[in-house]
């Protein structure tokens, strides 16, 4: 990870500074460093409105909007409460509508209800959180559910009335600990530390007992105590899979025994063998099996967690693959679910259809790779995949996924400009003003890859300017990107436009997009450091029949 210092700005109305050392210590474990900045206590909204204020000078990478409501609010009468909250809603709206213009990642905290507050107050809190959630979703802001963390440990354990009144610092030790963890987790998510794969041990992790010693029928899993904890752990794993996390099995057992276990205890087990995107069941050292799993799924160790109940296994794997996150399961299976949920970094907000079927995408990809070996010619292999490219233009039905593509695609991405779903929606709505959002979905005989390519173009007189061109890595290398470019050429020729330009901002990751344009005979003009324009004159000769093997509709 780079040594870059992340600039983190807190829009806040209370003392938050004591958290920073704690957050910094957690970030350091993943080689991240941060500088923290804060708004003033009582003028956050005015600062956001003032374009000369610190927040606009600093240009933070990440902004947290973290507001607290004084528990004394409960002492106000209903009219005063209503006035306070209406003002509060206004402030939230002003803050969000101004911040979204900044090129920063933004994240809102919700606000837990007060303990023992009257019903009227709680209704206001509920409305506040509904508003925060709505704004976050609409603008693709992060949304941190502080309330659920507070309810889990209890309001009194989290908040300190004493320090709140003394220094406007509202948290107790436990609150500091939990908050530092959830803020760090969110930072990790944004900086590529999202977990995508769980590598799971079997014995005493997925079920109680040791398969080779206790025998299939004596393993603890099912409705009875303590088997129910393992069953519930498996339920959690299925839930995580639905959120796009891949599961793999890495166990020291004979594969045939594992197959027999999943067959004969089918009723007790929640997981099926087919839920695992990769299985390594043998007696080799676990690090070897883990490396094979990572290679097979084309995932990096830093995005994966190895989960095992044995400290020996955890330590020996960690020694060989230090960048892999490891999780030692606690002695009591009743603590499994909480242990995993506390540890895993997943972005559960704004999940797209593509996220939910990620596991299936990997299974399909595995089949494609196996198929590839059968063909001596790459063109024949692609032809046989029977790829269909479905191109859409200015459609509003896939805004979430398009926004996500701009945010997640790093390699084949000409500008890496990230757009929120709100910004994407605006672009599409403005499409009449000579801007086009063109995107494609690819399917082949093995499955649907989903929406994998996007071009944002603007048409100025006699030329098309590619404001951004991007492709999901999983679809690259099968001529799909070429077929999409061909579509763009045809689209231009039909409009009698013969000049195309592509804005390009070079960074350490997107060389692949740079090479693609060079290969397609775009001419390069360097504007200033890392900023380029690629230009090309097109004619009918640029329509290459070779790419007709991909059917474009």
């Amino acid at each position, binding site marked *: 990870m780079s040594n870059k210092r992340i600039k983190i700005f807190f829009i806040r109305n209370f003392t938050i*500074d*004591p958290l920073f*050392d704690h957050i910094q210590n957690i970030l350091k474990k993943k080689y991240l460093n941060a500088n923290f900045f804060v708004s003033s206590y009582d003028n956050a909204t005015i600062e956001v409105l003032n374009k000369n204020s610190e927040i606009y000078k600093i240009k933070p990478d990440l902004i947290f909007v973290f507001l607290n409501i004084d528990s004394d609010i409960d002492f106000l009468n209903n009219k005063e409460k209503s006035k306070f909250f209406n003002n509060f809603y206004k402030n939230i709206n002003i803050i969000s509508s101004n911040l979204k213009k900044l090129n920063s990642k933004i994240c809102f905290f919700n606000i837990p209800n007060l303990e023992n507050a009257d019903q009227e107050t709680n209704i206001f809190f509920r409305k506040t959180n509904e508003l925060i959630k709505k704004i976050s979703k609409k603008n693709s802001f992060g949304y941190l559910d502080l309330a659920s963390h507070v309810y889990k440990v209890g309001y009194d354990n989290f908040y300190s009335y*004493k*320090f709140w009144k*003394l*220094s406007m610092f509202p948290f107790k*030790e436990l609150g*500091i600990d939990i908050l530092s963890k959830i803020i760090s987790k969110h930072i990790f998510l944004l900086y590529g530390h999202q977990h995508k794969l769980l590598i799971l041990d079997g014995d005493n992790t997925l079920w109680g007992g040791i398969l080779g010693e206790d025998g299939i029928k004596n393993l603890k899993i099912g409705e009875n105590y303590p088997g129910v904890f393992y069953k519930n752990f498996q339920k959690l794993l299925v839930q995580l899979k639905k959120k796009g996390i891949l599961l793999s099995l890495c166990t020291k057992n004979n594969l045939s025994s594992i197959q027999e276990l999943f067959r004969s205890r089918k009723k007790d087990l929640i997981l099926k063998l087919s839920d695992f995107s990769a299985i390594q069941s043998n007696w080799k050292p676990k690090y070897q099996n883990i490396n094979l799993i990572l290679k097979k799924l084309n995932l990096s160790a830093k995005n994966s967690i190895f989960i095992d109940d044995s400290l020996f296994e955890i330590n020996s794997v960690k020694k060989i693959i230090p960048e892999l996150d490891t999780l030692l399961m606690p002695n009591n299976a009743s603590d499994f679910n909480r242990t995993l949920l506390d540890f895993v970094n997943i972005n559960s907000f704004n999940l797209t259809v593509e996220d939910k079927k990620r596991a299936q995408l990997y299974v399909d990809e595995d089949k494609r790779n196996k198929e590839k070996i059968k063909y001596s010619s790459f063109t024949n292999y692609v032809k046989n995949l029977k790829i269909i490219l479905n191109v859409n233009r200015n459609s509003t039905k896939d805004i979430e996924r398009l926004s996500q593509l701009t945010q997640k695609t790093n390699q084949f991405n000409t500008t890496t400009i990230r757009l929120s779903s709100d910004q994407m929606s605006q672009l599409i709505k403005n499409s009449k003003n000579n801007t086009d959002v063109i995107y494609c979905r690819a399917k082949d005989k093995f499955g649907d890859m989903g929406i994998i390519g996007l071009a944002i173009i603007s048409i100025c007189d006699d030329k098309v300017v590619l404001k951004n061109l991007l492709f999901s890595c999983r679809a690259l290398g099968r001529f799909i990107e070429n077929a999409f470019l061909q579509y763009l050429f045809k689209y231009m020729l039909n409009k009698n436009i013969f000049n195309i330009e592509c804005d390009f901002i070079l960074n350490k990751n997107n060389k692949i997009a740079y090479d693609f344009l060079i290969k397609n005979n775009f001419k390069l003009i360097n504007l200033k450091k890392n900023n380029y324009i690629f230009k090309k004159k097109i004619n009918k000769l640029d329509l290459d029949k070779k790419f007709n093997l991909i059917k474009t509709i």
Partner: protein
Amino acid sequence: MQFNENKLKLLISKILKVKPNQIKNNSGLGQSSNWDSIGHLKILLAIEQEFKINFGDKEIISIINYRNIKNLIKKKITNK
């Protein structure tokens, strides 16, 4: 639990990012640029956690320098 002055000095010096021997009896809130209101708050929070004590409402406003803090912790630990 025995009161350990080195532990207290180390704790405060870490928070204020100074050397332990720079912490004197009259060091305290407003006496140096590091020991500002946020630094003071961090010290109070860390002491409650580290020495497993709970400052009372009146106590917390009476401890504004190292000497006060040290004496109060000693007293609270002995009375435990």
